[in-house]
């Protein structure tokens, strides 16, 4: 079970959070092609390595925040940290 760094509440147990999926690129404007829209909608990255994702402190302050989580090791770092 992970501990996650809530920007308001600090390091808390995973049970207080809900995962809200990987960070998506900004919502496309209405003039993108259908296939661009479908790609935005349905093709998330699934790397072996760090994935940037959203978590919701649902049983806490209610904040959505962003972290990077390693899909193999579950190592967590902040999005601004270098994961290279």
């Amino acid at each position, binding site marked *: *079970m*992970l*501990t996650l760094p809530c920007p308001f509440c600090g390091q808390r147990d995973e049970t207080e959070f*809900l995962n*809200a999926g990987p960070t998506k690129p*900004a*919502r496309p404007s*209405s003039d993108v092609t*259908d296939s661009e*829209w*479908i790609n935005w*909608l*349905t093709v998330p990255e699934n790397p072996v390595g760090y994935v940037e994702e*959203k978590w*919701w402190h*649902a049983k806490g302050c*209610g*904040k*959505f925040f962003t972290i990077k989580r390693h899909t193999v*090791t*579950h190592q967590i770092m902040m999005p601004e940290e270098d994961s290279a």
Partner: protein
Amino acid sequence: MTHNPFRQKAGGRIDRNSCVEFEFNGKRYSGYKGDTLASALLANGVFLNARSFKYHRPRGIMGAGVEEPSCLVELLGADAGGNYAATTVQLRPGLKAKSVNCWPSPSFDLMSINQLFARLLPAGFYYKTFMWPNWHLFEPSIRRAAGLAAAPDDQIPYQHFETRYWHGDVLVVGAGSSGLLAALIASRSGARVMIVDDHPLPGGCLRSSQTKIDERPAIEWAEAVCAELDANPEVTRLQDATAWGYREDNLLMVTERSPAETHVFQRGWKARAGRVILATGAIERNLVFANNDLPGVMLASAVQTYYHEFGVIPGRHAMIFTNNSSAYSLAHDLQAGGTMIAGIVDSRPSNAIGAEKDGLDIPLYAANQLQAAHGGKHLRAVTIRAADGSTKRVDCDLLAVSGGWNPAVHLFSQARGTLAYDDALASFVPDKAMQRLACVGAAAGKMNLVSAIADTLSTVTACLSEDNFKPSAFSLPSFTALPDYHLQPLWHVDGMKPGDKAFVDIQNDVTLDDIGLAMREGFDTVEHVKRYTTAGMGIDQGKTGNVNVIGNIAKASNKKPDEIGTTTFRSPFTPVDFGSIAGQRNGATVLPFRHTPITQWNKDRGAVMYEAGARWQRPGYFPINGGNMQDAINAEAEAVRYGVGVYDGSPLGKFDISGRDAAAFIDLLYTNDFADLEIGMGRYGIMLSDDGMILDDGVTFKLAENHYLMSTSTGFADVVFRHMEYLLQIECESWQVWITPVTSQWCNATICGPKARDVLEALGVSIDIGNDAFPFMAMREAIVAGTPARICRVSFTGEVSFEINVWPRHAKAMWRRIMEIGAPFGILPVGSETSHVLRVEKGFLSLGHEVDETADPYDLGMDWIMSRTKTHAIGRRSVDIRRSSGKPRRELVGLMPKTGGELVAEGAPITPNGDRVASEGFVSACVWSVVNKQIIALGLLTDGRARIGETIIIRDRERVIDAVVTKPCFYDPKGERLRG
């Protein structure tokens, strides 16, 4: 009087003044306080106490702790539970246990006939034989035959479990010499420490060691350390507690089996530490020779434990078989205790045998192997094979076996640490740690006590310094030196005959031949061998056998064991009671029910209560005297259609939405236009998820400029809240919108039916409620029956409805008042069954019925809700793309099933021509319509709108039902009544 024929006259750490009576397989025995079930059985001479998993071979106790592969028991009565190793069950007065895999008893087991067919039951037999038509057809009876204990039938009322959290600096697993030392150093440096140990008493291998520490028996040192730890309030010391799971971020799952608080049966700990020290020791492994599973064959370390801990020597005439030096200490113990020893068979050449043999006066068969054990239900003799192949038969009734020691790397490996093969140990040792942990002692492969202790000191000190503690100088106690640990691997003995059963995994009945068979059939990696043969699975997870499996795969494939690798170590390390994981989270405490202030009134009225989404308790229907459920529903529905009814609409999800950008936000959420909505009016809207499927529907009222009250369906309020928060916090960060969930802040009683207005007038209302002053879809603030209220004119029933919203504190009084004032009008309370009937008659959609995350508004015939001008609403683009493909869709239709009055099950498929082929739709709801006096249904049907008038066929299990397709509205299609 305790009659323990195999108990020594003295010795052991049992309390000989406290006799404990217990029952095993229906017979009464006695042991002493401090015994385990296993030690008590051995003391009583009960050596045959199990039957093996597959072949039902006679089995006895082989180990003395968690490694026990053989003797599994089911506990009965107050301790009810299954599949405990007898070696881990503490003897308690009145304990009742039975063997798990035999009937009627281990000594006369009917299934032992399997042994005769053993030749026909090789690895993979079940998979190969019971493939057609379907393994699941055979599985139940095979599982029964090759069985483990069943789960206890009843919940034991006084088996109270609880969960506790611990957060600290250092968590030490194992209270042997290294673990105690680690905890001592950490606690003296000011760290908050927890130490857990799976034995009832601390000390680990010190408990059966001849080592002296500071000139005193080793155990006295251990006890002194514990006394110091216990005196430190920052130290939590748990005995009889197993750390069985290692999770991310140094979270360990611990089950404490005998908490000090007597009302707690077991306690599950979730312990999170800055640093974990694994001092889990090592587990002795078996040797592979013919009949190595016979009762009387035991691990050498287990025999030693029974001798030191319990004063039991489970035989009169012992033999030792080893490939390493450690078993010699048992020979010294037995010799000192006066037990007859027939000899030591050591597979190592005599020049490799060192100081361990000094002082022994027994035959030593160096460079010999023990080829086979003999006996029917107990060991009687062994065959010893010399290097030249000559054999010799020697009588004995106890064979102590040592195949060397495997560091207990289970937790280390669960923490994703990598393992390395150590040639000197012929086993796997921790390599690279992936979490903040360190291994010390035998767990780190340090088998020599004296050097292990020195290593523990330096390792723990380094960890503490790294973690910013300041460990004080620590002087190690002086240990008397023991002979060095030395081993030569022996993966299996030579000279076995065809048909000899030599087990690599005792618990799962996996033989050396099975490994060979698996590899010949192409299952030649360790993970494949495991799955094909089941070696390493089960209760013990191959604690005594896994490395032998790896060694034998390596030997058979001419590789080194490190090229073979290990299988994955999984939690739990030992079996765990579900109760200790669940703790107090049991029944309604897992997800508490939600109630409205009317719940008790409903119950007093005799309502049958339902759970109506999101754990809300709602009345399903109100039974009437002399009538069945359908009569009650009909009466309630007729009241609404022809008179007046009232229902408690409080659980409906409600959100107060305000802020500068609230209007824009509502426009983003809903597919239809809200821009022209007037203050004081509401509008029905549908919101979609990003993939263009219906997420929720409901009415949103405009309270003021940029101030709205949104209602959502009961079960989806939480989902909608999350959806809105996600958008606001992630996509619309600069927007100013504030959402307040007010579901429980507004309760409502919805008065509905042709006489609804009359009832409201009679209640006393401060505003004009005529249709012109207060039209459909309007909201008004008013005083109703002396109480401030918000009245909404929405309708989920198709009749004139007034939703009287009041604060929760007024809800019960308002409800009673409505029932009282409504009585002359014939008002009836209405349950969710009736609401369902009324909305099906009207063809109003219901989430979870017509809408199941595969439907969009067009599918439901709601083209009008997709704004022509506003295309930026969430999900709109996806709907448009999907519609542009022109592929057929399932569309909402009405159905008139010809059943002669019987209801059709919701979810029943509609298939082309009624054939058993892929469905073309399904029935989403089916009710008896009080206005149509017949069965009506709603359904989703491929191209349904184009097929109105057709007859389709519903398959409700074995029933084949014709139904005419209609428009999805059976009552007042123009909606004149609800606007009236």
